[in-house]
C-alpha cells in the first residue's frame, strides 16, 4: 500500500507576493497571555485559505508557561521543508524582552512591529521598525487588552500586505468565540488603521 505522497498543499503556487522572500519567515513574540499563538494560527490559516502553504510552530512545555511567548509562521508558495524560523523577515514584538531577544536575528530587510507602550527602547537595527500603540488601542479603544493580538494582526497584515483583509477576517472569526465576533472585527480594523502606508 503506497503512502499518499501528495504533501503540503499547493493550490496556488504563483500567488506569493513578489516583495517578500519565499519562504517568508514571521515571528510573533511577547509574553504569555497575549494570545500570540492564536494570532499565528489565524495568520497561517488565512494564508492557507489564499493558497499559500503555511506552517505555524511555537514553544511548548514549562518554558512556554513562564513569561515569554513566541509563535512562528512560515508562508511559501512551495513546500515548506525546514519548519523553523531562522531569520525573521517579519517580527512582531509586544514586550521589551521579546524585542531585545529577537530583533538581533531579523533579516536586513525585515519589517519589525513593536508595541510603542511596552517596548521603550528599540535596539539599533537596519530593519524597518514600526512602533504602534497596539496594547493601548486594545485597552482604550476596544476596552479589552485581550484583543491586542488581533489588533497586532490587523496592523501586521496591513503593513506587510500578506493576505486579503477578507481572508484574515474570516480566519479570525473561525477561531474566536461567537460572542466576541464583533469585538474582534473591530480590533482587526483598528489594527489596520494604525498603519498608514
Amino acid at each position, binding site marked *: *500500500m503506497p*503512502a499518499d505522497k501528495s504533501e503540503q498543499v499547493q493550490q496556488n503556487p504563483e500567488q506569493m507576493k513578489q516583495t517578500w522572500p519565499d519562504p517568508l519567515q514571521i515571528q510573533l513574540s511577547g509574553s504569555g497571555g497575549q494570545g500570540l499563538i492564536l494570532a499565528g494560527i489565524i495568520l497561517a490559516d488565512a494564508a492557507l485559505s489564499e493558497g499559500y*502553504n503555511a506552517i505555524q510552530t*511555537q514553544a511548548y512545555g*514549562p518554558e*512556554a508557561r513562564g513569561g515569554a511567548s513566541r509563535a512562528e509562521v512560515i508562508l511559501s508558495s512551495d513546500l515548506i521543508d525546514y*519548519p523553523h524560523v531562522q531569520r525573521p523577515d517579519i517580527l512582531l514584538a509586544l514586550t521589551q524582552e521579546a524585542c531585545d531577544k529577537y530583533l538581533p536575528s531579523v533579516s536586513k530587510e525585515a519589517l519589525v512591529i513593536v508595541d510603542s507602550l511596552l517596548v521603550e527602547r528599540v535596539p539599533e537595527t537596519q530593519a524597518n521598525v514600526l512602533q504602534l500603540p497596539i496594547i493601548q488601542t486594545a485597552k482604550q479603544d476596544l476596552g479589552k487588552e485581550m484583543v491586542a493580538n488581533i489588533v497586532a494582526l490587523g496592523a501586521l497584515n496591513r503593513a506587510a500586505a500578506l493576505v486579503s483583509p477578507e481572508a484574515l477576517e474570516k480566519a479570525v472569526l473561525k477561531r474566536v468565540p461567537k460572542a466576541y465576533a464583533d469585538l474582534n472585527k473591530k480590533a482587526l480594523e483598528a489594527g489596520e488603521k494604525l498603519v498608514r502606508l
Partner: protein
Amino acid sequence: MRELAEVRLMQGNEACVQAALDAGVRFFGGYPITPSTEIAEGMAEKLPALGGKFIQMEDEIASIASIIGASLAGVKSMTATSGPGFSLMQENLGYACMTEVPCVIVNVQRGGPSTGRPTAPAQGDVMQARWGTHGDHPAIVLSPWSAQETYTLTVKAVNLSERFRTPVILLMDEVVAHLREGVRMPDPRQLKLIERPRPQGGRENYRPFGGALDEVPAVADFGMGYRCNVTGLVHDDVGHPSGSPQVTNDLIRRLSGKVEAHRDEIIDYELTQTGDADMVIFAYGSTARTSLRALKLARAQGLKVGMIRPTTLWPFPEKAIEEVAERGIPILVPEMNLGQLVLEVERIAKGRSLVQPLSRVDGELFNPDEILEAVKELKPVKSRKSSKKEGI
C-alpha cells in the same frame, strides 16, 4: 459532512485524530502525556458523536489493555502516548503481537531517556519500537514527516493492523505532532479501508491462530458466536495453551513471518534525486525536512545530493539501501538520537558504501547548515557505478 478535499490547518496530532476517525477507529483508551495529549483530547471530543468510545484509563498499561480488549470485541482501536508511557506498554504490546490483535499505538517521541525533555523533539525510540517487548515479535513502525503525512500514515497504520492482525506503531516526533500546517483531507468515502479477515465458515473449522508461516488467519469478534480462546501463552491453532515444540515453533515463526513475507506491501519510502546522486541522505520524520532543505542548498552549490526518506521504519526498507550501497554511494544518516536506524543502514550496506551517522541529542532540530556541512564531508568508499533506476 465535510467538504471534499478540504484543506485545514492542523497539528500533526490533530491530523492523527481525524485520520483515525476516518479510518474507522471507534475506540480510544489512553492516558495523557506530553507531547501526545492532543490526540487523547481530540478523541475525547470527537468519538462520542460518532458513537465511538473514549476512555481515560488509570495508566498506560491499562490503556493498551483496554484497546486490545475493545479490538477483541471487533472495534478498531487506538492509543497514543510518549516514551515513558510507551515503555510501560511494552508488556501488553507483546501480548497484542502474540494474540494477533489489531490495534494502533501512537508514540509521539520526546527527549529521553526517562522523563527527559518532555517538550523537546527527539527520535530516540526507534529501536525500542522494534525491540521494546521481550521475545521475538513482529514490528510495523511508520514515521511521518508532516501533518499531511500523519494523516496518510495513520490511515495506513489502521489498515495494516487490520490486514496483518498485529499492533502497528505510528512513531511521530514532537515537531510533526505540534506544528500546524495545511492538511488536504480526502473524501472519507474514497479512503481505502481494510477490515481484519473474519471467518466465513462454521465454528468447527475455525482456526483463529492457524495457517501457513506467512498467513494471517481469520478472526471472529467476541460475541459473534465463534467462542474463541485468546491467550498470551504459546497456543495451538484454536487458541489452547500448548507446550509442544512444533506448535511453539510454528506460532513464533508465523507471527513474524506473516509480516516479513509481505514486506513489499508494508514498506514505503520516498526517493528524492537519488538517480544522479553522488551522496545520499537517509532521513525520516522532521529530520527529513531539514535534510530536504540541506539537499536543496547542496544542489544549489552544484553538489549531487539525493535523499531516501523511509516512511516505514520497520520492517526496515532494505532495498532502498541495497540499491545505493551497491553503487558505493556514501550515506549520511542524520538522526535526533545517538545513532539508531543508522545501525541498520550499516548492516545492510555491508561495507559497500560509507555510512556516516550524524547525531543531535540536545533537544533541538538539526539545522540545514549542519547537515549540509556533513554531506560535504562524505567520501565515497569505492568508485561508484551509475544507477539504472531513477529517483524523483
